[in-house]
């Protein structure tokens, strides 16, 4: 049905394409004076057709992707080839002759470069160089092996009489054919492997091979071609030598051309500060120039562009503006995907033209079997050799995928079309065979490789965002490894890598990077910066909801979410202060609104700074001057620090509320006490003002969540929940008491604000330069088994009786409660707790402001503290914990 729709879509097009071509043929009559309407198809024909084809290809792509099911089973390349076949059939039927085929010239000059540039530019260079040895081996040795064995085997087949005698070809012809059919095709590999998601090492090896073997293919093809043209009798020994030499010339020359252009490109972008707008253009122009130059010098153009992309990326990315970077990325991807689509479609169309090819079953079958067999054999042999040297050997499954992933594609087809029929009499047979091989590899192998990968349980690539830690550890690792190699006195890969980086840092980067870029140029910093920007953007996009996800998705109040979300800013404006909110709170003691307001308070606390920020960002994005932009970036950056802290906090909070926040792959080792205490904490809040239904809900969610964890965790969490349930009545009372006692209304909001309390809190203990409060957070950290320490600390607290810090103790008391330790004290503390918590918002706001005023490290420090706090508290023995607490409380009271 899908296809029918497509062909319907294509019909008028084919008709339109066909009609006008005949029109200009018959301009017999004299021109009838002034024309009111002139049909000038002829003048626009060529570009029009190109545009139409691309349009058709893109529409086809859209249609394919309408159905997720189809695309998940069938690779897009297969669908496109099939579509091409259908379209080709229609064109053939309508025009009576084959049109719009894949012309080698078009293919090599226009369609291939974008794909190669895209893959070179976005090649994970680290991975590529790490596996360079393997890639080169497969690309050079593997391709040579494939070409010669396939060619020779086909020749043997012919000698054995299995190929019809009408295929007139000698050994050289077969070698020529072998050389063009043996190369793994980057376009096909990319198209299929991108959907398969095998692990990155495997991918880079197959894909890198397909890119780098171009040089070998080109050389082999050219050498064989000229040998065939010269006639085998005239080939001299020196020609063979020249052939071998040309391998080096073509490959190294191509790479050199690429690197030269990469250098030029990097250098040029260094000086585009005032003409940012042409930055993307430069990237494309110079890369294309590299391709054409290499092609002109008959060097390996693919290699040139790959190297150009690989080489320039680092510097270009550092030099060009952020917007240019995005532009480059998208344009490149668009062009590549366009070219790829058109290639596959044209490939299908070209196959329809029966005038071009002649069928010979023996040759076709023989070729198919040989390329599969020799590819597999070659991979096994090379891998065996490579594994002697590789530290991480490639296992059997990898080898299967590698041999099976050797797809042939449009390059082979274009090369075979380029053959000269007068010199290669068997060209038609070769064309037919190539078409079959390409179709077989792309369709059959493309279709089956996914199930195969699944069935073999090939390690897939996990998609995860880059993390700071990963980057840091990788760097540390590089250093360690380089150092160890040095100690051992073995100058291996890591040593040279290190040397290269030194060199790059000292000279190249300095030469090729803008000074401003160079100064802050550091990978770690980069990742950090990017992560922060990303967070900030997502934060701004969500209008400050990140924080809200904690509170707003409370299970018991789903209906009000939207209201709360949308009205945050309004509320902020309307009420201006916490007082209004508080009045409402008082009106509706212990209703759902309490909670909502609490949530709101959270939001406001966390987001006080945000509405302004957001407004500013959206407004200034386009008009703001560069300086302001930078300042804004900085601001985003700093703001982000805060946000991170909050999201970090809210993650913890979420444990008991929602699953919306990803609880990052937890290792079962997590201290349950944390979650437990948190759960109790959260529940305490919920329970205090809410009916028990909420409890049940949360419990459920908790359990669901915990399912993934170890059973131990589950149990403990359950326990925590039970605590809470029992504590309910007391909490409720607390709520009442505090509610009635309240003079200053705002405190009510606070109880739910561990988030804000958390922010400031006790982590200070180390540095002590900031306000120190004892927050619920602290308590959370103490694992269940440390409850004794807890109680002690609480009693010490009582003895101190410092009002401002009481709130936390109350919260913290709750968990121990059921165990019957400290019940009486709880109410006592209540009256005072408001004050301590009340202090938070202002201080918070202050922190936010100071942050915006470029005192960067203050907030950072602040944020940091929690970490330290955690660490310390988690591992404190009860005794130390007590003393610790005392200190904190003192501090708090001083404040």
């Amino acid at each position: 049905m899908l296809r029918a729709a497509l062909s319907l879509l294509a019909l008028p097009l084919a008709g339109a394409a066909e009609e006008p071509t005949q029109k200009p043929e018959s301009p017999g009559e004299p021109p009838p004076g002034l024309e009111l309407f002139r049909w000038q198809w002829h003048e626009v024909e060529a570009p029009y057709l190109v545009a139409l084809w691309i349009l058709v290809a893109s529409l086809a792509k859209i249609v394919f992707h309408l159905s997720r099911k189809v695309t998940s089973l069938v690779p897009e390349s297969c669908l496109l080839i099939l579509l091409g076949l259908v379209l080709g059939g229609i064109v053939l039927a309508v025009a009576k002759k084959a049109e719009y085929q894949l012309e080698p010239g078009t293919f090599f000059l226009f369609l291939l470069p974008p794909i190669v540039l895209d893959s070179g530019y976005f090649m994970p260079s680290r991975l590529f160089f790490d596996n360079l040895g393997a890639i080169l081996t497969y690309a050079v040795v593997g391709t040579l092996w494939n070409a010669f064995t396939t060619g020779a085997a086909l020749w043997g087949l012919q000698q054995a009489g299995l190929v019809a005698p009408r295929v007139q070809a000698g050994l050289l012809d077969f070698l020529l054919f072998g050389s063009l059919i043996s190369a793994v095709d980057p376009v096909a590999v990319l198209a299929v492997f991108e959907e398969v998601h095998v692990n990155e090492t495997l991918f880079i090896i197959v894909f890198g091979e397909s890119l780098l073997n171009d040089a070998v293919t080109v050389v082999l093809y050219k050498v064989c071609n000229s040998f065939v043209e010269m006639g085998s009798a005239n080939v001299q020994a020196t020609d063979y030598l020249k052939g071998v030499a040309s391998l080096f010339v073509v490959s190294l020359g191509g790479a050199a051309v690429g690197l030269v252009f990469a250098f030029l490109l990097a250098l040029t972008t260094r000086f585009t500060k005032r003409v940012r707008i042409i930055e993307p253009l430069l990237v494309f122009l110079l890369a294309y120039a590299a391709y054409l130059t290499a092609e002109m010098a008959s060097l390996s153009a693919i290699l040139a562009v790959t190297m150009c992309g690989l080489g320039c990326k680092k510097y270009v990315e550092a030099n060009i503006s952020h917007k240019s970077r995005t532009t480059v990325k998208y344009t490149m991807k668009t062009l590549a995907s366009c070219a790829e689509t058109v290639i596959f479609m044209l490939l299908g169309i070209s196959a329809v033209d029966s005038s071009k090819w002649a069928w010979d079953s023996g040759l076709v079958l023989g070729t198919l079997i040989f390329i599969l067999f020799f590819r597999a054999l070659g991979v096994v042999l090379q891998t065996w050799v490579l594994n002697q040297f590789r530290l991480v050997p490639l296992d059997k499954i990898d080898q299967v995928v590698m041999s099976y992933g050797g797809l042939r594609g449009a390059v082979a087809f274009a090369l075979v079309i380029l053959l000269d029929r007068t010199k290669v009499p068997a060209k038609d047979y070769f064309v037919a065979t190539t078409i079959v091989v390409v179709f077989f590899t792309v369709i059959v192998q493309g279709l089956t490789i996914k199930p195969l990968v699944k069935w073999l349980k090939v390690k897939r690539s996990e998609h995860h965002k880059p993390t700071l830690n990963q980057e840091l550890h990788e760097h540390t690792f590089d250093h360690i490894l380089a150092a160890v190699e040095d100690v051992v006195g073995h100058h291996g890969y890591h040593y040279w890598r290190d040397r290269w980086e030194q060199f790059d840092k000292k000279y190249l980067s300095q030469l090729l990077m803008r000074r401003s870029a160079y100064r802050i140029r550091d990978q770690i910093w980069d990742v950090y910066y990017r992560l922060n920007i990303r967070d900030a953007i997502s934060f701004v996009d969500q209008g400050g909801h990140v924080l809200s996800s904690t509170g707003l998705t409370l299970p018991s109040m789903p209906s009000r979410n939207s209201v709360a979300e949308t009205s945050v800013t309004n509320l902020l404006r309307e009420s201006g202060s916490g007082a209004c909110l508080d009045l409402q709170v008082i009106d509706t003691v212990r209703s759902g609104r309490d909670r909502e307001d609490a949530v709101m308070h959270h939001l406001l606390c966390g987001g006080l700074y945000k509405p302004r920020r957001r407004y500013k960002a959206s407004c200034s994005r386009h008009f703001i001057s560069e300086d302001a932009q930078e300042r804004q970036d900085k601001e985003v950056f700093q703001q982000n620090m805060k946000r991170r802290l909050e999201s970090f906090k809210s993650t913890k909070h979420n444990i008991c509320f929602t699953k919306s926040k990803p609880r990052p792959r937890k290792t079962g080792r997590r201290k349950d006490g944390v979650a437990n205490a948190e759960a109790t904490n959260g529940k305490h809040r919920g329970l205090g003002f809410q009916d028990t239904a909420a409890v049940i809900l949360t419990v459920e969610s908790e359990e669901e969540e915990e399912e993934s964890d170890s059973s131990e965790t589950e149990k403990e969490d359950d326990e925590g929940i039970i605590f809470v349930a029992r504590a309910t009545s007391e909490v409720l009372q607390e709520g009442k008491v505090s509610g009635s006692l309240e003079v200053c209304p705002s405190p009510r909001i606070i109880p739910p604000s561990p988030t804000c309390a958390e922010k400031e809190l006790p982590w200070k203990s180390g540095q002590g330069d900031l306000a120190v409060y004892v927050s619920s957070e602290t308590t959370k950290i103490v694992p269940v088994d440390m409850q004794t320490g807890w109680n002690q600390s609480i009693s010490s607290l009582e003895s101190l009786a410092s009002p401002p810090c009481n709130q936390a103790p109350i919260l913290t008391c709750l968990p121990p409660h059921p165990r019957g330790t400290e019940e009486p004290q709880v109410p006592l503390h209540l009256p005072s707790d408001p004050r301590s918590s009340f202090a938070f918002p202002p201080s918070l706001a202050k922190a936010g402001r100071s942050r915006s005023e470029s005192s960067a490290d203050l907030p950072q420090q602040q944020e940091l503290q929690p970490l330290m706090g955690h660490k310390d508290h988690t591992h404190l023995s009860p005794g130390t914990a007590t003393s610790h607490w005392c200190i904190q409380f003192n501090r708090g009271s001083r404040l």
Partner: protein
Amino acid sequence: MGAAHSASEEVRELEGKTGFSSDQIEQLHRRFKQLSGDQPTIRNLRKGPSGLADEINFEDFLTIMSYFRPIDTTMDEEQVELSRKEKLRFLFHMYDSDSDGRITLEEYRNVVEELLSGNPHIEKESARSIADGAMMEAASVCMGQMIWQGIDIETKMHVRFLNMETMALCH
């Protein structure tokens, strides 16, 4: 040292302990001698803040180096896991400068600062904030679990470590 060199049992013992082949031990020993100036121990290592030996003998040297051995294909799952753990522990100790079993923020900051020290334009502050961010990230992953936090993280990453760049070492 002469004893280690001559007595083949000793070599065998070292083999068993560290997993190096006798050839490798031989080679490492040569290197060791070169580094130590023909002394039984290497001295004058920069003295660490605490708990660091200021000299190591050949066996220590070998033990350290053995952390960098690639994973053997013949090892079974358990052994692989074990050697991973060992490697991680070793790494962990590289971060954990006061060897109290946990990587504190301070220690982590130091590591980051050193990492960034190559670039004079990056101030200490940024290094700190990076370390802070990383720590926060770590914390959000590990839910406040800090003692083994470093290890946890590296276990996570470590597949990539071991896959990609597993310890190149001499042969």
